[in-house]
């Protein structure tokens, strides 16, 4: 059968979410950000909550989020997404509020805001993209940068004696009582993307049921920052990033499920 005979509206099984605008993403080719942004839109479309959702995008590669979504997105100062989300959620408790933050934002400049929003158990969803580097500003070292990993500000590799250890922040946040759900995913294979979609849906349902803070971390690639092709970056991520940041649920229904002391 000719492909032209199959390409008809009644045979459509997958298309871009209608909540996405026609603007082209500002992300580099092959970046995991694009997949996560699209998946969030799909979840919101499936739940039918597009009129009640407010996104918060702080500074970083997430900064142009308002350009890509057809629902409301508020811009926050660098690191302050959780603080802005707190304000919006308290004024409009019936809205679904989510933040979309990178590791330089959530784990560096915004650690204080994030920690305290989680400790207060603010009823928001935090989507955290961890690619171990400051992608937007040119590949500088982030708190999450792996030991020995080369970036533009540590060209000989991260030396833990002077630069500290990689910050594995989600297990830290999981120990706070206000946090209800913490999980870690990736987007390097279609199966992983589908798992992420389920987790995001769970997070938004937790918010609907007023359970507390839900955190979905996505370990992602940054092929431009790491200086690799998209496929090589994904392979490198599987080999190196997953050792420090293993995938899986960390806290489910308010109970820690990941063994923090397990050898990796």
């Amino acid at each position: 059968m000719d492909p032209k005979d199959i390409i008809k509206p009644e045979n459509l099984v997958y298309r871009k979410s209608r909540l996405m605008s026609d603007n082209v993403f500002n992300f580099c080719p092959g970046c995991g950000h694009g997949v996560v942004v699209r998946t969030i839109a799909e979840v919101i479309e499936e739940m039918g909550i597009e009129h009640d959702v407010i996104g918060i995008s702080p500074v970083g590669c997430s900064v142009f989020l308002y350009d890509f979504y057809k629902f409301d997105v508020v811009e926050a100062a660098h690191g302050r997404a959780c603080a802005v989300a707190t304000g919006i959620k308290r004024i409009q408790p019936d809205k679904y509020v989510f933040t979309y933050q990178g590791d330089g934002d959530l784990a560096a400049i915004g650690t204080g805001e994030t920690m305290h929003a989680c400790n207060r158990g603010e009823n928001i969803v935090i989507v955290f993209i961890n690619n171990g580097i400051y992608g937007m500003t040119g590949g500088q070292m982030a708190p999450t940068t792996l030991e020995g990993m080369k970036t533009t500000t540590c060209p000989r590799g991260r030396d833990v004696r002077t630069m500290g250890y990689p910050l594995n922040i989600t297990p830290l946040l999981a120990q706070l009582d206000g946090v209800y759900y913490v999980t870690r995913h990736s987007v390097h294979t279609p199966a992983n993307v589908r798992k992420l979609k389920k987790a995001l849906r769970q997070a938004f349902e937790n918010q609907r049921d007023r359970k507390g803070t839900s955190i979905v971390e996505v370990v992602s690639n940054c092929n431009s920052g790491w200086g690799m092709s998209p496929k090589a970056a994904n392979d490198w991520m599987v080999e190196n990033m997953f050792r420090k940041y293993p995938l899986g649920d960390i806290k489910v229904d308010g109970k820690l499920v990941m063994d923090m002391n397990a050898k990796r």
Partner: protein
Amino acid sequence: MAKIQGAVTIDNDRCKGCELCVNTCLQHVLGMSAKVNGKGYHYAYMENPGACTGCTNCAVICPDGVISVYRAKVGE
């Protein structure tokens, strides 16, 4: 016996040529075009259209959301 056949459409102008869909496709349907689009990227296209099963893996992994997937029963 009815057979499932799929087909994809790719928005050539928006494709950034990252090749993730080509590496993901288990049926080796997709390939990279020798031509480039307006931004200078080699875009993905259906190199081997008969083999497509419409599994949607390429569209799910596409960072730019340029792929739509169609699926139909054929040969009934």
